[in-house]
């Protein structure tokens, strides 16, 4: 009796396993920020990712989406649930570096593939790199390094720099200083989440600077730009794309016009994949895409390209297929460096007005085929 039961159980289990195999679907767990002040970034990344799946017409991918509320502890819970209960093959979606640091190391150690749509903390690019971790966006320092290179090229000799006092903020100023050759008129760390910058702007005014570099993502950047424009200081501003992405430009308004910012992507990049992406995104969601959306779109296409070449069950082959990065990126050429981070051009963009819409136009290249500063420390 007992034996029959066991045999039946075993058969059912085998059948179930067989059914899952036959479907051949790759299960993706997407953990991203869909509520709270940082939701715009996660929503754009998700929409870009889902758009690519829709356009491909492929049914090889099944996606489970959960909201991390921008809280590390919730992201960790969701990752555990996705790995243990949902049994996903691939994780993706995290926007913020502190959340990525909480989730990625344990997920890749459990032999799950992690594809980063946004966060690129230095710890995961250097000594902490991992064969299962692929970053499709950039290493955190990259856009700031490009801003430093641009400030040098533009002949700025006394730049005032500021960023929030948290790891990505320190990385930002380090990245800027790595490629900036002039001297600093001042260096300020602001409180994370600060909304009033009157005191900082007064210091900029008094410092005798000839330009300003700032990294203040999301709402912090909106507040700073509006107050800066209203203060009449009027020095040229350089920043990474995070304070001038499509999601927040409308809220900054005319105050951002003419500001120069650095990004690995722009909606006017002239390649077929990008034109398809921008048009399809506008049609599907009724708004212009941001760089976060382009990163989500590229991530999904990278995944699809690997699924076409290898079976997810064969991890070595699948990793090799991912590493080839054989897909049409919205950035044009796309390839991975030794540490599975992009080696890419970083562009200089300028904020312009098209009708009622504020958006970015590419005006030059800051760094070509840029490799991040931590690649050499990665041993894998």
């Amino acid at each position, binding site marked *: 009796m007992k034996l029959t039961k066991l045999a039946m159980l075993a058969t059912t289990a085998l059948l179930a396993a067989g059914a899952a195999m036959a479907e051949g679907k790759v299960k993706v767990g997407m953990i991203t920020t*869909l*509520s*709270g*002040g940082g*939701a*715009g970034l996660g*929503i754009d990344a998700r929409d870009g990712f889902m758009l690519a799946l829709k356009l491909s017409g492929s049914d090889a991918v099944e996606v489970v989406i959960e909201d991390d509320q921008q809280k590390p502890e919730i992201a960790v819970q969701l990752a555990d649930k996705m790995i243990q209960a949902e049994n996903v093959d691939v994780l993706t979606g995290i926007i913020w570096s502190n959340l990525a640091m909480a989730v990625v190391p344990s997920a890749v150690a459990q032999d799950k593939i992690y594809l980063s749509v946004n966060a690129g903390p230095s710890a995961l690019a250097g000594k902490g790199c991992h064969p299962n971790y692929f970053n499709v966006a950039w290493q955190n320092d990259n856009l700031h390094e490009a801003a430093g290179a641009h400030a040098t090229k533009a002949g700025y000799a006394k730049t005032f720099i500021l960023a929030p*006092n948290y790891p990505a903020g*320190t990385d930002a100023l380090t990245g800027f200083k790595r490629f900036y050759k002039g001297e600093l008129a001042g*260096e*300020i*760390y*602001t*409180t994370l*989440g600060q*909304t*009033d910058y*009157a*005191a900082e702007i*007064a*210091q900029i*005014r*008094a410092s005798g600077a000839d330009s300003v570099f700032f990294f203040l993502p*999301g*709402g*912090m950047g*909106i*507040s700073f730009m*509006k*107050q800066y424009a*209203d*203060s*009449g200081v009027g020095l040229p501003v350089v920043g990474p794309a995070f304070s001038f992405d499509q*999601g*927040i430009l*409308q*809220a*900054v*308004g*005319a*105050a951002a016009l003419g500001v120069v910012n650095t990004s690995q992507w722009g909606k006017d990049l002239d390649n077929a994949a990008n034109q398809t992406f921008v048009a399809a995104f506008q049609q599907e969601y009724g708004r212009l895409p941001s760089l976060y959306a382009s990163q989500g779109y590229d991530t999904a296409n990278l995944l699809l390209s690997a699924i076409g070449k290898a079976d997810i069950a064969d991890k070595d082959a699948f990793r090799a297929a991912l590493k080839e990065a054989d897909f049409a990126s919205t950035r044009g050429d796309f390839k991975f460096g030794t540490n599975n981070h992009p080696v890419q051009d970083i562009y200089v963009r300028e904020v312009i007005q098209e009708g009622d819409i504020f958006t970015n136009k590419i005006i030059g290249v800051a760094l070509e085929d840029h490799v991040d500063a931590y690649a050499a420390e990665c041993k894998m």
Partner: protein
Amino acid sequence: MTFLLFAEQMLNGLQFGIMLFLMAAGLTLVFGVMGLINLAHGSLYMIGAFAAAAVAGATGSFVLALIASLAAAAAAGALIELTVIRRLYKRDHLDQVLATFALILILSEGTRWVFGSFPLYLDVPSYLSGPVTLPGGIQYPLYRLFIICAGLLVAGGLFALIARTRIGIQIRAGEADREMIAALGVDISRLYTLVFALGAALAGLAGALVGAIQSVQVGMGEPVLILAFVVIVIGGIGSIKGALVGALLVGMTDTMGGVLLPRFFALFLDPSAATTIGASLGSMLIYILMAVVLIVRPSGLYGSA
């Protein structure tokens, strides 16, 4: 540090303090009169900012936007009081915290549902934008001066209301002894609705005024709410005068601490360490101030023990 920079920073501290006062005044009134901890006060600030952004976007008028922020926040406040808060007066503070925290979540996601996840545009009107030169050669944004004046006007109006009018007498009486005032024939539940709506309107006005120079987005109220609580704890719960003094103290301490501490540490540390340590300590300074006030005067500067 030059005199110009110092004067400009003093004005910044003053303006920040005035803005905090608008938030703290409503919070302290509600706490003092009704004994209610309202965590959703920050959501009313957000509602004011969103209403102002929507009306400014539709009509292009900043004055109408300010009126809309007052009206929308007051209406939302009255509605919340009638449907939710009313049931909480007799409960203990933990139930109030739980219920008003739920309100934060509901109002935030409700706002996202109506306005979407991306920040809204609300700008300073052209006649208030740009810097002006003050006596002594200080360059200062006109709009920030406007906030200072508007805040002082509101503070004056509020003092007159509390000290001179019949409603003010009832509010003060309600603070002192709510059973007695009910026994005297004052409709206490209507008074509560009125006080709550008044507090909400002040928060909404603060949201609209500040929204023009900051980011109008979901969740913008919570960081300010924490500071407003610090203000009323320092000033003494229930005291409008305490809220004003506490707000100015917090505004000044926060601004001047953030500016002066890094310079102080730069005297004996290398520059990058000085900025990091100075910035960290600067952001702790108001909490240190609160702790010191609580040690010296446990019920706050103007609190009744």
